[in-house]
């Protein structure tokens, strides 16, 4: 920091090397999984994974035998559905939280925060009973509803903090120019929110794509998202680690890629609330 001119060697020893060690711990298991998935099953137990002669055979088997494509489609439908529900319900709510003062505002805002603190089991048992009574088990709708329990509160918070960052004077200027409140919201604030809406949507997508326990409990034969498919594979192909790790890589891919694209904005939004405190 303020130590004047640190020699490069010293920086390498105190910063670069420890950072590399932590990154090795962070990425090691993932890279090991990647390497395993690219090793032929026959070689895995004789010679072990190696960076020489990598093969695609595990991935080919994955899509040919296990039918992973259908599972990915299920995950996609559920995740997109959750994004749509989460965003449509939360944007107007967030605008209201950000722009108006009304009674019980704080209580209402806090209850959205509270929801995400509850253990999943508290919801998963009654939702199972409910969906069973409604005959919705093993449908995409059941999973979209279940994932919305996580998505709506999160999205309300993210969008509220995002809209808080847009000056109120913009609404007022629009209203002076003859817009009604709702027009000001729709024509002025929403377009300005687009980056926030996209980031929130992507985060909801990732969470819904990665979600496992709801998918396991409320899904079934017809609707089986990728996470459940990966877990089922663990039981079925117990020692075929080449195939299993290929499944893991494919299952994690969409979320990982999306996350790397938006991580900067997302991390900013997530940490903002905490830094203020």
């Amino acid at each position, binding site marked *: *920091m*303020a*130590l004047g001119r640190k020699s490069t060697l010293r*920086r390498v020893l105190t*910063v*670069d090397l*420890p*950072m590399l060690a*932590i*990154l090795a*711990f*962070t990425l090691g*298991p993932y890279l090991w999984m990647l390497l*395993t998935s690219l090793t032929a099953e026959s070689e*895995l137990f004789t010679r072990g994974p190696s960076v020489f002669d990598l093969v695609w055979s595990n991935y080919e088997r994955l899509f040919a035998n296990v039918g992973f494509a259908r599972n990915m489609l299920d995950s996609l439908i559920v995740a997109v559905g959750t994004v749509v529900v989460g965003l449509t*319900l939360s944007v107007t709510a967030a605008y209201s*939280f950000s722009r108006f003062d009304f009674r019980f505002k704080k209580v*209402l*805002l*806090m209850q959205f925060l*509270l*929801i995400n*603190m*509850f253990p*999943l*089991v*508290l*919801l998963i*048992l009654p*939702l199972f*009973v*409910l969906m069973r009574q409604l005959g919705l088990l093993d449908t995409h709708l059941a999973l979209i509803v*279940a994932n919305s*329990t996580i998505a709506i509160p999160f999205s309300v918070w993210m969008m509220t903090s995002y809209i808080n960052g847009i000056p109120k004077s913009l609404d007022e200027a629009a209203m002076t120019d003859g817009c*009604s*409140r709702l*027009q000001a919201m729709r024509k002025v604030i929403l377009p300005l929110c687009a980056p926030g809406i996209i980031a929130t949507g992507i985060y909801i997508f990732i969470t819904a*794509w*990665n979600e*496992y326990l709801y998918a396991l409990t409320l899904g079934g034969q017809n609707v089986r998202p990728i*996470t*459940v498919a*990966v877990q089922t594979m*663990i039981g079925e192909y117990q020692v075929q680690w080449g195939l*299993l790790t290929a499944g*893991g890589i494919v299952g*994690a891919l969409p*979320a*990982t890629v999306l*996350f*790397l694209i938006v991580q900067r904005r997302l*991390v900013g939004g*997530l*940490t*903002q*609330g*905490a*830094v*203020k*405190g």
Partner: protein
Amino acid sequence: MTTTSVPEQEGPTSGRRAALWRQVMPLALLSPAVLVTLAIVFFPMIQTAWMSLHNYVLFRPKNFDWVGLQNYFNIFQDEVFWISLRHTILWIVITVPAQALLGLATALLLNQKFPWRPLARALIIIPWALPSVVIALMWAWVYDSNYGILNDLLLRVGILETSIPWLANPDTALYAIILTLTWQGFPFFAVMILAGLQSIPQSYYEAASLDGATPWRQFWHITLPGISGVLFTAILLRTIWVANSMDVIFVMTGGGPGYSTYTLPLYSFLEARTNLDFGYGSALAMTFTLMLLGIVVLYLKRSAKAVQ
């Protein structure tokens, strides 16, 4: 929502209507989100509480007998409950500090200047984005007793003489999963703490070093107080999250071997899933939630302050 077209302030009647609309509109905008959460979150929660007061086993769905607090009394005589509680506490008091310390170290490093800092910062968060099932699968492969890389490395270095079945051994299983969860959660701490570090004015450090303060004293008197708020919030949030998290355990060991990796939420989930005993499972879930409530309230209070 048709009243929107009424222009504000246009004659006395529509003026009154506009005033009413101004009062109602905030709530109207809120209501979809609030009503839906009531229906899909709060109503089911009440149902859990209701189920917990009944004898309700799903393969006899006709029987829904009121038993009052009997399920709760049974919990306190249930040996598995106490085992799970012990594991839950161990699980929290090891995982959260481990995540916090590793996260702090990472954040301090990321706050230094080095050429590949943006790359390091992007890569460090990857565990956070991975599905827990994939994390469980990945680490199960690392821990594999025959071909896992952990045994392989430890054998080669000479720390172990024979390979250990990490997840099948009752003495190591819980700790193996704790390491996995530490791996999954420390990036969150790193990111939060880094944000806190960057909010400390650089001038504090300049002034301190002019006064001859050593780096250690600077860390103790400037850095630590500067991030204490963020750190505390992160620890609360993480404690709640770690306590609740059971998907990684469920996939890695399913609670076994024996009961050696049972935690309370997992016990509640398994009770409903495998024994189909929704009454007792609900009572377990309620008990666990009440235990966690203290931390949740503390966190909410802090957040409420931050909102103002």
